[in-house]
């Protein structure tokens, strides 16, 4: 990738960060939880996007960002008040800005009329000249000139560099004189010029670079040394310049210092090309002083000595800089960016390390080496270290759920607009960290759940008022870590599940038989059934061919579980429970019919040895076990997976109590328990496709391959 393409990529990454910042800021202002710096941060975000976009010649982006920025600047300056209407407009503008960024990056379709509409609204809000969106409202961005490293035309087709000629910059188009012009430049620096680290000699040198210059220094103002202020300015110069340049080019040399010196540039009438350059006569107080060729000082040495003395006096050091320096580096250089492939490679290697380490441990045990021997103790340390390395590496992939939560606030706005409801999103625990892949794959299911919450969960405004609720509905999203998993909840304060209606539809669609007695939670669970939808008409919003069954499957594919709880009149809550990582798993290693299997520890509630009186038959084959007053179905894993043809005797088995989705408990019968172990998950689906009851495989310490059980599937397979 060439430099320019790499920077462009950086720019788009940064845009995403700025967009997130922008939205967070706007939402904070909306909820009145902002401090004075919030509006500055919001302004800076848009300003930064505009700045970068300008450099890449992304004109549409620049134009929109400029108008947005102008409005924000007025808000920042207190000229306009951010009322609810304006905030809504600004949130929409941030959505448009996000769209434009993505459009600039990925191409595709852009709803131009919507951009124009929001642009016009912003323009009106800021009382700007109602410039139509089609015309650039921003200063025309002068893009990079293709110089040196910025050989942009080569790699990036959509980047068209605009070449600026010198004349364009100077606004003195193309009238290059064919002959030399004589300019008389008089230049008298003020002390401020030096105080701002400008230097007369550099300016003189620059003038001389333009052509043939004769420089005379006037030292008549230099006082006696006793009266000389080391920071004063006593010298002035007169330059006769013969050069093939415009007057503007001469003046440009003094661009930075025009207020810190007296400078005049006069063009002498043009002369014949065969004009012979004669230095102007110099009066007696002026001495022609050769300009030092090297970087030597132009200030008398005595003055320099004095300056050095002042500088060397530490007591005179102003405290300002020191005080600021004492502040801790809060943000500076606390992050580095690393290619994800490298991290994944590292994770893979650490996975192998874990396997290797546990194989080694097992060999040592098998070799009968004493537990307290140095080898065994050293191995324990290694095990500890390996685990810490693994945790640290996993933490690299962990990211806060904030970005995805922020994305949902946009979904809410759009859906709320579409269905005509007023909705407020409340989020909690945005800093909760989850594996990057889990976060990425959560976007679709969460979007669907949020849409459902607004479309189906919340009542229409008039119904809410009737029910004595505030007109504005609330959708709440929370994330929290709980016992090694991430729990994400999406809840609304709507009417709750209409169970009678759900049941009616389930019967109509053939999901259940009429007249089957169902508990409330069983009815609620029906909405996860394939093809189920409670909306009587397929609305624009939720009815996109995705039902809650798809949501459920995608959560399960992540090793997660989803459950629902609902209270009539108070609302509905969906709870997602997700693994922190997809790469390793704490498992219980068990044996079944001579096979070694791994049961994910997160699913296990307890293990027990069934006793005669506890086991009861139910119907023809089914068996249940009575534990603490409830009957729990016994499932023979070996039989289910086809390892044996007859079910094993529960009394000779170990029962592993598992809790699958919706807190359904079952008891898995296995032959024996080997122990607990952290295992590295190896996907089987690439080579084998989906196998019933098997989630993945792993390599155990003794080098054997063991399958990891898909507990939910086995339990569900038993029920159906």
């Amino acid at each position, binding site marked *: 990738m060439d*430099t*320019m393409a*790499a*920077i462009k990529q*950086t*720019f788009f*990454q*940064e845009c995403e960060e700025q967009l997130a910042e922008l939205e967070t800021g706007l939402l904070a202002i909306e909820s009145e939880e902002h401090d004075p*710096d919030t509006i*500055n*941060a919001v*302004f*800076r975000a848009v*300003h*930064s996007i*505009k*700045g*970068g976009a*300008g*450099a890449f010649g992304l004109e549409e982006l620049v134009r929109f960002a400029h108008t947005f920025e102008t409005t924000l600047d007025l808000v920042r300056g207190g000229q306009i008040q951010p009322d609810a209407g304006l905030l809504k407009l600004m949130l929409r503008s941030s959505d448009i800005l996000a769209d434009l960024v993505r459009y600039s990056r990925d191409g595709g379709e852009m709803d131009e009329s919507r951009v124009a509409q929001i642009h016009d609204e912003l323009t009106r809000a800021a009382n700007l000249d109602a410039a139509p969106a089609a015309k650039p409202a921003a*200063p025309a*961005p*002068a*893009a*990079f*000139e293709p*110089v*040196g*490293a*910025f050989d942009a035309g080569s790699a990036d087709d959509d980047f068209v560099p605009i070449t*600026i000629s010198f004349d364009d*910059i100077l606004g003195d188009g193309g009238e290059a004189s064919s002959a030399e012009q004589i300019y008389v430049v008089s230049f008298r620096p003020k002390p401020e010029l030096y*105080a*701002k*680290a*400008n*230097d007369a000699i*550099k*300016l003189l040198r*620059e003038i001389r670079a333009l052509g043939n210059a004769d420089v005379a220094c006037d030292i008549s103002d230099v006082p006696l040394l006793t009266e000389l202020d080391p920071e004063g300015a006593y010298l002035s110069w007169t330059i006769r310049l013969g050069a093939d340049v415009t007057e503007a080019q001469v003046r440009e*040399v003094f*661009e*930075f210092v025009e*207020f810190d010196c007296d400078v005049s540039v006069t063009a002498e009438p043009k002369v014949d090309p065969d004009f012979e350059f004669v230095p102007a006569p110099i009066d007696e107080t002026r001495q022609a002083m050769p300009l030092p060729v090297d*970087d030597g000082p132009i200030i008398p040495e005595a003055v320099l000595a004095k300056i050095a003395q*002042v*500088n060397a006096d530490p007591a*005179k*050091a*102003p405290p*300002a*800089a020191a005080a*600021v*320096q004492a*502040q801790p*580096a*809060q*943000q*500076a*250089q606390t992050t580095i960016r690393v290619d994800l492939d490298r991290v994944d490679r590292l994770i893979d290697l650490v996975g192998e390390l874990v396997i290797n380490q546990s194989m080694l441990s097992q060999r040592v045990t098998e070799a009968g080496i004493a537990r307290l021997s140095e080898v065994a103790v050293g191995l324990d340390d290694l095990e500890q270290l390996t685990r810490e390395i693994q945790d640290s590496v996993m933490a690299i992939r962990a990211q806060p759920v904030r970005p995805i939560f922020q994305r949902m606030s946009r979904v809410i706005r759009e859906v709320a607009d579409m269905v005509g409801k007023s909705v407020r999103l409340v989020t909690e625990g945005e800093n909760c960290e989850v594996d990057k892949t889990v976060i990425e794959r959560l976007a679709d299911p969460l979007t669907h759940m949020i849409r459902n919450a607004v479309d189906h969960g919340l009542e229409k405004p008039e119904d809410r008022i009737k029910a004595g609720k505030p007109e504005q509905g609330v959708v709440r999203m929370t994330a929290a870590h709980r016992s090694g998993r991430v729990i994400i909840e999406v809840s609304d304060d709507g009417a709750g599940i209409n169970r009678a209606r759900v049941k009616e539809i389930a019967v109509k669609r053939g999901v259940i038989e009429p007249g089957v007695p169902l508990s409330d939670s069983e009815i609620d669970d029906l909405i996860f059934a394939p093809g189920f939808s409670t909306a009587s008409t397929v609305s624009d919003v939720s009815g996109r061919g995705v039902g809650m069954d798809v949501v459920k499957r995608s959560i399960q594919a992540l090793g997660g579980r989803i459950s629902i709880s609902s209270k009539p009149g108070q609302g509905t809550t969906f709870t997602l429970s997700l693994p922190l990582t997809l790469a390793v798993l704490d498992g219980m290693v068990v044996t079944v019919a001579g096979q070694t299997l791994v049961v994910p520890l997160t699913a296990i509630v307890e293990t027990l040895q069934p006793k005669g009186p506890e086991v009861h038959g139910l119907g023809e084959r089914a068996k249940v076990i009575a534990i603490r007053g409830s009957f729990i179905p016994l499932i023979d894993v070996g039989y289910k997976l086809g390892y044996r043809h007859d079910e094993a005797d529960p009394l000779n088995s170990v029962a592993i109590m598992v809790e699958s989705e919706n807190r359904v408990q079952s008891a898995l019968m296995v032959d024996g328990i080997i122990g607990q172990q952290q295992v590295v998950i190896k996907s089987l689906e690439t080579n084998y496709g989906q196998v019933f009851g098997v989630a993945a495989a792993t390599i155990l310490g003794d080098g054997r391959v063991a399958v990891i059980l898909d507990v939910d599937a086995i339990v569900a397979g038993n029920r159906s």
Partner: protein
Amino acid sequence: MTKTVLTVDDSRTIREMLRAALTEAGMNVLQAEDGVHGLEVLDGAMPDVIVTDINMPRMDGFGFIEAVRGSDKHRAIPILVLTTESVDDKKDRARRLGATGWIVKPFDPTKLVNAINRVAA
């Protein structure tokens, strides 16, 4: 002699652009994310020129210029200000606080390097 330039800008994109342009011109580049960070970098460095943005979190360009000009050790370093708009009041304020010159964003590398050469020792 190779020139060392300290660039202070909160935008990673702009920092990277400056780095590319300046390295191409054979200069050393130091980077800082805002004024506070800039002063920290200056604590252990003596760049030939400083290029700073104005609008930054924690400490903006104005505060940074003031702090540099108030430091005995660093006050003689030329400071160029990056401004997006050629808005004069910002330029003026930066100038009054001691900015040596300015560069209008989006800058082109040649002008940037010229400006640095103009003010660098």
